[in-house]
Every structure is written in structure tokens, then in C-alpha cells.
């Protein structure tokens, strides 16, 4: 049976759709209402509250904490000041991605790392000989993501002991919501203004209630994974096991991806003398680029409509995000594949994340997206564009 997160007593009665998905063994709402549309718009117009407790969480403490984190992740962790958060992938020795997540630097020798899947053994093994303790704190911390343009106003009204309004993008603060000590990070998976709230499970319901109470006047809605999936594609954010396969899970070499191949080259931050897991392989790859690259695609929507109209149908792709792999062609050859795609309600465009041959990954490059209409395959034009597709100023502002 799926487990309940600490918020389940609140989320379950709200989940009118009764659509739950297994997220790391926990029941996680796909939608609360019958459809995800309103929950999606809450992210872009009001505020959405996601229960992200199933994320794996690790605490790294000790004098060598920074050294360990810097050894594990591709970002330069020594460069991360106290009170800041990094988004980063981490790799195996071959420079292929294992997982990705955020690294919170709570203090000089105390970090918190979030991951999609269990990584304790890896982190501990990497710490061999170091004066550091790595603990799995997944069960010790419940987590909420509060995302959307009104999230700041809501949070500022419930948090005491921290200046939420002044919290910069990818910074963290410790404060209280009511009696509950919380960590607030200005992070999220939606590409919008937003925060994540980390709290002990014993305080979870009180925190939920405080946010729900204040949030009502600010367009707050509980939101599920369907809405999150649309938002994260618009934000150009990767999903493990969908947009890339962990090197631990890949049974064949060609399924693995390096950060460069996954569009995360910016997150590989070598420094003279810095050695991190995979650094040599990645240095080599930086000099001799892989033939594969990541690309955002904008698929020509009028063509999709036309293809459906030709058989008398409205476009049946609107609304929901798709995780179906779809071939990308150019000049009659397959040059890559889409890993995630969705109609973007805010942009009114059909957008996709793709793995594509490097020659075709340049913004502006025209390719063809395979579209199946009534069991018949067609191709429709698509264009490589920069991600994020949607990047409002408020995200960083």
C-alpha cells in the first residue's frame, strides 16, 4: 500500500478527483479537481501548494561537509555561501548523471541535499576518509512547494523571524510559521516566483493550515503533479527517468546522459585543482563535445490543428503534458527524440524538451516533430528555441 505523507490528512479530503500517483512509495495527488487546468493557472496567476514530501532528503554535517558536497556535485559547492541554495546534477566517474536536486547550505558545515531517488550509500561512500556525517532525513522533513505570483505575499504573512520579502532567488532562511520552525528556500519546480517550505512532520498540518487560511484571499489552490508537469516543462526543467535516465538505472551505455547532453553544461563548474566525481570525464567531454545535445522545441501549433482538422477533429493534444518519447526528424532522417511535451496554456504554444543531435540543437534550427493523428503518423514543423520557454521577471525579481 502507498504511504501517506504528513500532509495526507489535509490533502486527502481535498483530492476530489481521487487520482493519486505513486511517488517514491507515497500517495501523491495528480489533481485535486477533476482536471488540472485550474491548478495549473494557480501556479501562473495566484499560488499553488504542492506536497513535495516524497523528495529524498539528506543532511551533511561536519568539518568536511563542504568538501564532500563539492566532491559529489558538479556545481562548485565551495563557492556557495551560507544561506544559499544550488540546483545541481551529480554524476558517476564517467560523467554520466545519477540524479539531480538542490543543495541548501544551512551553515558553513551543514548542508541539506534533495534527490529524486535514494543516494545515501553513494554520498557516504564518496565521504570515505572525511570528517563528515551523512544522514537520510527524508522522514524527518515534510516539504511543501508554494509557487506562483502571490506566493510571496502569502508567505510573508505567515512567516515570522525571517524576511521572506527580501529573500533572493535560490536563498534560504530559517523562521517560524506559528510555533513551527521552518526552513524557507526560494526554489521550486515551476519556473515561477515560488518557495519551498521544509518542516518537521509533527508541524506539517499546522503549516498547511496556516498557508491555506491566509492563501484563500490570494488565489491559493492545492495542486497536483499534472499541473506541475505542465509548469516544469514550460520552465524547461528536467525530470529524472523521463528526460534523462540515471546512469545507475541505464542498462545500456547509450541511455546515459552527461550534464552537457542534458542541457546542464552550465552546472558543470570546474575550478583549478577541483576534483569531483566525473570531473575528468566531463573535462574531456567539454573539449570534445558529445554528438547529443538538449533542445527546447516549439512545435507549430497551426499545423497540429490542421492535421487534426483534416480528419474533422479538434486538436486532441491540448491540455495535458505527455511523457511519450516522440521521434524528431530532419531531412528525412531521425535526428533525436522528444522526452516531454505539452501545450502551454500560458504561451499558447506546443512545446517540447528533446534530446537531439548537436548539429540540430542550435536555436532557430528547423526540425520535424512526429504527430500521430487517428493512428496515422505525420510530421509537423518545429523550431529549436532557448529554454525556459516561460520565464517571468518575477521568478528572480
Amino acid at each position, binding site marked *: 500500500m502507498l504511504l501517506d505523507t504528513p500532509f495526507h490528512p489535509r490533502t486527502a479530503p481535498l483530492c476530489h478527483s481521487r487520482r493519486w500517483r505513486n511517488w517514491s512509495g507515497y500517495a501523491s495527488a495528480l489533481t485535486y479537481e477533476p482536471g488540472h487546468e485550474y491548478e495549473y493557472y494557480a501556479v501562473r496567476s495566484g499560488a499553488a501548494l504542492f506536497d513535495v514530501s516524497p523528495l529524498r532528503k539528506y543532511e551533511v554535517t561536519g568539518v568536511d561537509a563542504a568538501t564532500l558536497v563539492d566532491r559529489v556535485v558538479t556545481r562548485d559547492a565551495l563557492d556557495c555561501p551560507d544561506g544559499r541554495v544550488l540546483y545541481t546534477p551529480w554524476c558517476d566517474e564517467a560523467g554520466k548523471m545519477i540524479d539531480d536536486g538542490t543543495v541548501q547550505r544551512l551553515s558553513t558545515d551543514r548542508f541539506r541535499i534533495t534527490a529524486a531517488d535514494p543516494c545515501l550509500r553513494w554520498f557516504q561512500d564518496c565521504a570515505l576518509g572525511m570528517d563528515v556525517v551523512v544522514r537520510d532525513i527524508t522522514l524527518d522533513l515534510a516539504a511543501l512547494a508554494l509557487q506562483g505570483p502571490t506566493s510571496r505575499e502569502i508567505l510573508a504573512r505567515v512567516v515570522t523571524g525571517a524576511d521572506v520579502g527580501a529573500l533572493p532567488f535560490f536563498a534560504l532562511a530559517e523562521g517560524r510559521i506559528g510555533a513551527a520552525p521552518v526552513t524557507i528556500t526560494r526554489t521550486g519546480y515551476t519556473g515561477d516566483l515560488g518557495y519551498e517550505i521544509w518542516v518537521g512532520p509533527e508541524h506539517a498540518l499546522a503549516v498547511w493550515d496556516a498557508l491555506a487560511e491566509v492563501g484563500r484571499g490570494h488565489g491559493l489552490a492545492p495542486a497536483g503533479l499534472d499541473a506541475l508537469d505542465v509548469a516544469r516543462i514550460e520552465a524547461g526543467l528536467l525530470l529524472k527517468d523521463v528526460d534523462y535516465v540515471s546512469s545507475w538505472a541505464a542498462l545500456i551505455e547509450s541511455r546515459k546522459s552527461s550534464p552537457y547532453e542534458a542541457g546542464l553544461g552550465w552546472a558543470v563548474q570546474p575550478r583549478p585543482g577541483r576534483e569531483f566525481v566525473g570531473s575528468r570525464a566531463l573535462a574531456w567531454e567539454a573539449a570534445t563535445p558529445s554528438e547529443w545535445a538538449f533542445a527546447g522545441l516549439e512545435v507549430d501549433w497551426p499545423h497540429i490543428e490542421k492535421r487534426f482538422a483534416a480528419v474533422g477533429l479538434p486538436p486532441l493534444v491540448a491540455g495535458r503534458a505527455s511523457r511519450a518519447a516522440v521521434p524528431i526528424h530532419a531531412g528525412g532522417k531521425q535526428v533525436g527524440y522528444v522526452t516531454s511535451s505539452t501545450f502551454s496554456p500560458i504561451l*499558447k504554444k506546443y512545446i517540447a524538451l528533446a534530446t537531439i543531435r548537436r548539429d540540430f540543437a542550435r536555436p532557430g534550427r528547423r526540425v520535424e516533430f512526429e504527430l500521430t493523428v487517428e493512428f496515422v503518423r505525420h510530421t509537423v514543423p518545429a523550431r529549436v528555441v532557448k529554454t525556459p520557454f516561460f520565464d517571468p521577471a518575477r521568478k528572480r525579481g
Partner: protein
Amino acid sequence: MAKQYDVIVIGGGHNGLVHAAYLARAGLDVCVLEARPLVGGATVTEEIFPGFKYSVFSYVVSLMRPDIIRELDLPRHGLAILPLESTLTPLPDGDRIYRDADHHRTWRDIARFSIRDAEAYDDYGRSLFFMARAVKYLLDIVPPDPARLSPGDISGMLRLGRHFLGLEPDQLHLLVKLMTMSAADFLEEWFETDVLKATLSASGIIGTFLGPRSPGTAYVLLHHYMGEIDGHFRAWGFAKGGTGAVAQAIASAAREAGAEIRTDAPVARVMVKNGRVNGVALANGDELRARAVSSSLDPRRTFLDLVDENELPDEVLKGVRSYRFRGSSGKVNLALDAAPDLTCMPGHGPHLRGAVSISPSIDYLERAYDDAKYGDFSREPYIDIVIPSAIDPAMAPPGKHVMSCFVQYAPYELREGTWDEKREAFGDTVIDTLAKYIPNLRDIILHRQVVTPLDIERTTGLSQGNIFQGELTPSQLFFLRPVAGYAKYRTPVRGYYQCGSGTHPGGGIMGAPGKLAAGVVMGDLRRGRGRSGPGGRGGR
């Protein structure tokens, strides 16, 4: 010599702005002249009461053509349309019909009245989908004139014939019924439940001085069904920031394309020399020159107010004078201290994010029309309510709300007295009617704005306060809109064009007239002549 524009657009409503944006994108030097301090016409958001934003006139979006949204890249200019997912029709006895995106729940709600109707509801939806798909074709073409024999008209009519003959016979029959029947009779073919028929027929009377039992209202119903959001018909939405945000986004796109937009610039007349337009004179006496002038105002203003009668043939004058406006509706906008609490569905649920329709029976609506027929506002009016702040929190301070109430009937011409005398009585009637369904309403009203047809006319210039720039009845549609022979956006004056909702395909925040007219203007300017008259091919 003063600067000469390529095109001056009179009126900065959504159609004038769409028109200007397309012309500017084609490289033309365009100037929009708007009389008010803000653009938008009837598509405006105004903070009449501090902290509360009213979509003062038009209040929902659906008909806006998707190609215009895409081509002008309106999302980049700030347009976001939030879904309006449900319609709640409360009944005086505390019951209701609630229809939302949950198919099964809607089925159950209707089945409480009639299982047959619950099943027919799907069939009805399918039938209207086919109708909307058939008629949608017309929204994107310049209407060919069947009475002319120009090559363009003949090929246009042939294409049109081919399009409609391509329909299945039963669909064609249904279409003819839609064009001729009353909304009530049309719905009778599917449903037996009075309240269901009533609430569905309500979209057949909006903006029209007819009752649900008047022939012609079935088409108006279809017109409201043709709205498309993301490829799906009948989807209605609410523009984030109010409907004014639609106009602001289009204005931003037009400015980016190089159009100049002047506000506080009312136009006094269109200057004509030797049957050809050469500019406009502003109310302040300034004169601006242009190769072409497009009016987005309604046909009465475009033909009768702005141009000297001597420039127009008698049949056009006659046609425009008999063109029916007949404003039939008003608005009441409310600022509320808390959320409205409905007897039929108490509490702060998702129903507040949808429409609430006061349309409990066909007789109720017809009686409301009866009052108006003889020159009174309805004692118990049809009211279409939305609560924008429940959808977009930025419309009101936290925890407070704005409520937009579209009210019908409010006849422009009153039997007794004036609208200035009756405004508050009209507002009281609306509140009294609403309070029957929303018991806490009177206690939470912080401010009310009553908008009568006269106010609509005074503020936006829409003649008689008709929200569509003239009724959408079959005699005023397609090649007859606004008058026979001048449905292709041209006028008898060379270089003078029409681009407002008074032209095909009509009203609603659609933008199609503005875009289609831009095609005609561009074609004519490219051919080096500001054409007059109906002949020639519709520009493309």
C-alpha cells in the same frame, strides 16, 4: 505640409487595435485615435473603487480568434486567459443546475431533473460542436456578396457553397434551423427540463432585444458557442487583469509593430475631398492627414456622424438608419467585502470561479423581455454573474471580491423617464433579484457601479448601448452586416473603411473584423488605390 499617415484608425477598442497592429506589422504608418484617456473601448478594466478592478463593460473572453492571439504574440504582451469552468443556475426554491468540467457530475446534476436530458446534453454538445465547426469557416473570410458578379464574389460564393454542401444532411438541416428558430424552440428538440432550456437559451438573448421565444435567437446562441480556447469550442475564459488586459496586450503588440496610439483624441469628422478620404479632424481642431482612414466605431457613427451625408448614396443612408442597435442590457459591478454565499451552493467552493446565471425558467426570461418590449427594465432580469476576483486574486484586495453582473433587459429607450433618473432604481432591482439567491449580498456590498445602456453609449460611443455594435440577427449578418453592398469593410468613400464589430463577423471580443478589414486595406493600398464600393476581391 503636415505628416501623412498611411492609415488612421478611429477608435482604440479591441478591433481598432487589432486592425492597427496588423497594418503596422505590414510596415504601414498607422495612428490610432482614441477618445478616452485609456484604450479598450468596451474592453476596459478600471479601478472605479480603490483597490477593486472592474471589467466595466465586457467581462468574459472566448471568441478572440486564436490566430490573432498567435500572430500578434499576445501572450508575450501579457495576455493570459484563465478558464471559466462552470455555470451555476440557481433556482428560487434553493435548488440549482450546476454544469462544470466534470462530465459525470454534470450528468448527475441534470439527471436529478431528467435522465433523458442528462443524456441529451451530450448529444446537444456534439451537435453544437458540428455547427460551430461549420460556421467557424465564416469567421475567417471576407463575406462574398451573392448579389454581385465580380470574379471574387463568384469564387467566394462557390467556396462557401462547397463548404456547406460538404456538411452531412442532418447537420445542414440543423444549421438552417439555427439560423431561423428561436432559442427556446431549438432547445425543445433536445430537452424537457425547463430550467436547463432556460439557462442554455440565455446565451441566445445576450446583447439582443429579443426573448428566448423570438426567432433568430438560436443563431445568437451559436455565436456564443463558437468561442475557441486552445482548439476547443465553447470554452470561455477570463482575461487575467480583466478584459482591459486584452486591449492592453493588443495595444502593446501594435506599438511594438510601430503603431502610434493617441488617447484623449476624439475625432470630430472624417475629411473627404472629391469622394476620397484625406484625413480626419479632431475635436480640438487639429487635422491629421492619411491615405486611408478606418473607423472601428459602429455603423451609425462611421457613416452618419463622421461623414457628411452628401458623400453617401441614399440606399446606404437608409440602410444604416434602419440598422438595429436596440441596446438591451446593462451592467452592475460590485465591490464586495467577502465572498458571496449562495443559498443553492453555500460556501467558498469552485462554483465561485464559474458563471452564475439567473435564468430559472423560459417564462422568467420571456417575462423579463415582456417588460422591456414596452419600455421598462425587467422587474426580474436575466443576470449573468462572474466573480473575477475568485479567478484572479489581483482583481480585489485579499479576501475581498469584485462581482460583475450583466443584466438584461435594460431597454435603451424607456417608456417613462430617463436613465439618469432610473439608474439607481435599476441597480436596486438587480440587487433585489440577486439577494433572493445570495442572502448575504446586501451586507457585503462596499461599492456598486450601475451601468445603463445610456452609460454604455456615453462612455464607449456604442449607439444605444448595443454591446455588439448592432444586433446579431440573421438580417444583420455576413454580407448584410452592416448594410448590403458594404459588408467587405469598404465604404462608398474611397479610402474610408470600417473595422468594428458592426461588420462581419460581429461582436464579442473577437478581433476578426479588425483583422479581416486590415487585409482589405492592405490589399487596396498595395494596389495603389483607396477603393470605394463593394467590387473587387476581398483583400488578402
